C-alpha cells in the first residue's frame, strides 16, 4: 500500500478539487461524469494497492458497453519532464482525465504525490496540459527542496 497525496499549493489541492467537481457533476446526473468517477475510483484503488512497479508499467485496456475503447494508463512517465508521470483514464468519448504525479520514498514509505490534472477533450496535447506540466515541474522542485513541509504533515 502506498500513501496518495493531493498536493496543496497556497492552501488548495487542484487535483482533489478537480475530482470533487467530477463527483459533484456525477451527483447532478451528468452521465459522463458518473462513468469517469467510476474509472478514476477504480484506477486510484489499483494504484494505491500496487504502487509504482519496478518496470513502471500499469496499463490496461478494455471496452465500454458501447464498444468504445477505455484505457487505464495509471503510470505513464512524462519523458520530457522526468520524474513526473501521468495517471491517465482514457475514454474514446468524451476524452481523458490526466493527472500529473511523482513518486517518492520518504521515511521508508512510498508516496504518490498528485500535483495537477486536466480533462482532455479533443487536442491530444492541449495548452492547459502543457501549462500543468510546467507548473508541476516547478512544484516538484519546491517539494524536493523542502519535503518535510509538504510530506511531513502531522495528525
Amino acid at each position: 500500500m502506498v500513501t496518495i497525496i493531493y498536493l496543496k499549493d497556497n492552501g488548495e489541492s487542484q487535483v482533489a478539487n478537480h475530482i470533487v467537481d467530477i463527483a459533484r457533476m456525477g451527483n447532478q446526473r451528468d452521465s459522463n461524469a458518473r462513468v469517469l468517477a467510476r474509472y478514476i475510483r477504480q484506477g486510484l484503488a489499483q494504484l494505491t494497492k500496487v504502487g509504482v512497479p519496478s518496470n513502471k508499467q500499469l496499463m490496461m485496456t478494455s471496452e465500454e458497453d458501447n464498444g468504445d475503447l477505455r484505457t487505464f494508463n495509471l503510470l505513464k512517465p512524462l519523458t520530457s519532464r522526468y520524474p513526473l508521470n501521468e495517471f491517465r483514464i482514457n475514454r474514446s468519448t468524451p476524452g481523458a482525465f490526466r493527472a500529473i504525479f511523482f513518486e517518492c520514498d520518504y521515511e521508508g514509505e512510498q508516496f504518490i504525490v498528485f500535483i495537477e490534472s486536466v480533462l482532455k477533450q479533443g487536442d491530444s496535447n492541449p495548452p492547459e496540459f502543457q501549462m500543468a506540466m510546467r507548473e508541476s515541474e516547478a512544484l516538484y522542485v519546491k517539494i524536493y527542496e523542502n519535503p518535510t513541509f509538504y510530506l511531513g504533515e502531522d495528525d
Partner: protein
Amino acid sequence: MKSLNKQHEDLMKLLDDVPGVEDHMRSFEVQMAERILERRLQIGLTQTQVVDIVREQGGSITQATISKVECGDATVGSDTYNKVLKALGGVANLSIEFGELATNSNAALEYKHA
C-alpha cells in the same frame, strides 16, 4: 501522516457516493481485476510473461485479454479467469463475503413469506 491518508480516503468516499460507483467497485470483474493485477506484480511478471505461462500450461490467451482482465472488463469469461489464475499459481482458497441484501430483495422475501 494520518491526515494525508484521510484526505485520500475522504475523496474515495465522495466518489463512492456518486451513483453507480459503489456497484462498479463491488462488481466481480473489478474485484478480480484488482486481485489479479496485485498478484501478477507481487510475483514480478509482465502481462506477456503470463501469456507465456498460459501457453506452457497448454492454454491459449493474448496479452490484450490479460489487459482486459486487469481493466475489469465485464465480458471476460470464467474460462479466461481460470487460465490466468492457474498461471499465477492457482486459487488456494476462494472466500466470498456477502453484503447486505438489497431493499427490493427484502421486499421480495416478505412477499414470499406472507
